């Protein structure tokens, strides 16, 4: 800190202005390709086609078809985030605290890095080849157990199907996000709890989970926003048949399906609000839980 002060006072004024000049490209870039485009949509959400201010677009969001698409999106995001949180957490626990062989952890981490990026179009293909009508698992279940999952009500292009597909990138993301927090559980806490006569269940209930829960909740919110903004997987899987909000917005941008361009801006505003809130809460929660993982 003293060094910074010294440079700041010793340095001629020109050098200081030059360093400000150095971040101008970044600031300009963020303004032009991040802040202004988003702000533009937010403003557009409150304008009619002539540019006059109105709340009609927001009111128009409350029509049944749009409400339904938001509801489905929220449900899929919540379900896949919850499932991802639960299974990712258990997987991280098993790999980090489960006394498994040494190679398990780095293998899981590397694979999680790959799988969390393996979203989008190829993921849809992979699940079609697995659980589609002619998929390998569908066929195996049919030939070995005589179970026709499609006849018993399963459909890959449904809420549960899509949730199952999303879990493929949600679980690895959870593993990556929660591992530092699980690492942060100090061995001494467990030893101390044990010395004081706590059972394993008591240790988890009264020490580990209270320490972990902000990270867990934060991770849930991150996963939630991650699923809510996703489109490519669902689009490649279902075309435009599943009415999630990203697909609705995509169709709106491509072909004005709502016959009202300004309604598209309101649709986008709703998405920004939802992902913004969950990510904002995530950032707040991680800063809260940072004191334990130091």
């Amino acid at each position, binding site marked *: 800190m003293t060094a910074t002060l010294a*440079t700041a006072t010793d340095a001629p004024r020109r050098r*200081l202005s030059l*360093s*400000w000049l*150095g*971040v101008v*490209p*970044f600031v300009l*870039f963020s303004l*032009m*390709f*991040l*802040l202004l*485009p*988003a702000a533009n*949509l937010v403003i*557009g959400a409150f304008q009619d086609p002539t540019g006059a201010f109105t709340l009609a677009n927001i009111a128009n969001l409350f029509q049944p078809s749009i409400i339904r698409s938001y509801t489905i999106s929220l449900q899929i995001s919540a379900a896949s985030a919850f499932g991802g949180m639960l*299974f990712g957490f258990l*997987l991280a626990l*098993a790999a980090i*605290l*489960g*006394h*498994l062989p040494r190679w398990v952890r780095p293998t*899981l981490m*590397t694979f999680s890095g*790959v*799988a969390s*990026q*393996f979203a*989008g*179009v*190829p993921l849809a*293909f*992979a699940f*079609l*080849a*697995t659980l589609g009508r002619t998929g*390998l698992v569908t066929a195996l279940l049919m030939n070995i157990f005589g179970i026709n999952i499609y006849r018993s009500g399963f459909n890959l292009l449904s809420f549960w199907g899509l949730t199952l597909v999303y*879990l*493929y990138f949600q*679980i*690895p993301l959870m593993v990556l996000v929660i591992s530092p927090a699980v690492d942060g559980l100090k061995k001494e806490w467990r030893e101390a709890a044990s010395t004081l006569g706590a059972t*394993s269940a008591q240790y988890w209930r009264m020490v580990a989970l209270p320490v972990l829960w902000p990270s867990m909740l934060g991770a849930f919110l991150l996963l939630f*926003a991650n699923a809510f*903004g996703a*489109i*490519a997987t669902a689009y*490649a899987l279902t075309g435009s048949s599943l009415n999630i909000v*990203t697909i609705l*917005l*995509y169709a709106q941008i*491509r072909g004005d399906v709502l016959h009202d361009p300004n309604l*598209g801006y309101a649709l*986008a505003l709703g*998405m*920004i609000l939802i*992902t913004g809130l969950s*990510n*904002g809460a995530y950032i707040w929660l991680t800063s809260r839980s940072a004191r334990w993982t130091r």
Partner: protein
Amino acid sequence: MKQSRLIPWLGFIFGAIYFLVPLIATFEFSLRMQRGTYSFEAYRVVLGDPGFQASFGYSALIALLTIIVGVALVVPTAYLVQLKLPRLRPVVEFMTLLPLVVPAIVIVFGYLRMYNSSSFLPLTSTARGTDLLLIFAYVTLALPYMYRSVDTAMRSIDIRTLTEAAQSLGSSWLRIMLQVILPNVRVGVLSGAFLTFAIVIGEFTMASLLNRPAFGPYMQLIGANRAYEPAALAIIAFVVTWACMGLIQLVANLSPGSKR
């Protein structure tokens, strides 16, 4: 406290099945193009398709340009924030996190509204302009990953001493950046670059909405019209992602301290 290993093992095996079965099934499916026998026919068809070569080449080029623009943008910023403008750190960190907050489809929707042919900067009215816009879109998308890996690398070296040493030897600002800072943060830059490549190569939404002939929209098109080729494409995309992650691990082991 004695712990059973059975449950962790079961969890791990269950996870492994969930993650490996779709990959195995996809691979198996991709080999089934010729009736009654396994063959690499689907791969031969896909790799020989001019559309594949063109779109993959296009995406690889865009990814490369994205990395160059991203590095040029992020490295000086992270350097100045660390060395001279520490008060700016929260602002810059907030900006670099924004692309995680605002979904890609919303960002590109904003671009279409701001840079359409009747706007003050009509980038989308020419093909080259749209390419440029796509590159900027991808820089935005990669910003959180690029900034984090460069910033982490920069925190691990003493850039103040390096800068002062270079300055006392009479180096210019550009020279310090290119010949002193960049080589020292190359681990961060490279991992950011490979991650960016992995993200850009299969990206669908932005390329599709900007109407550019990229690999993501090509895959989607094949998926809608063919049976076995999509599986082969999924395997190819997975291998590319895997290769990028492998390269990240590789460069991470070459930390600045371990060089000659």
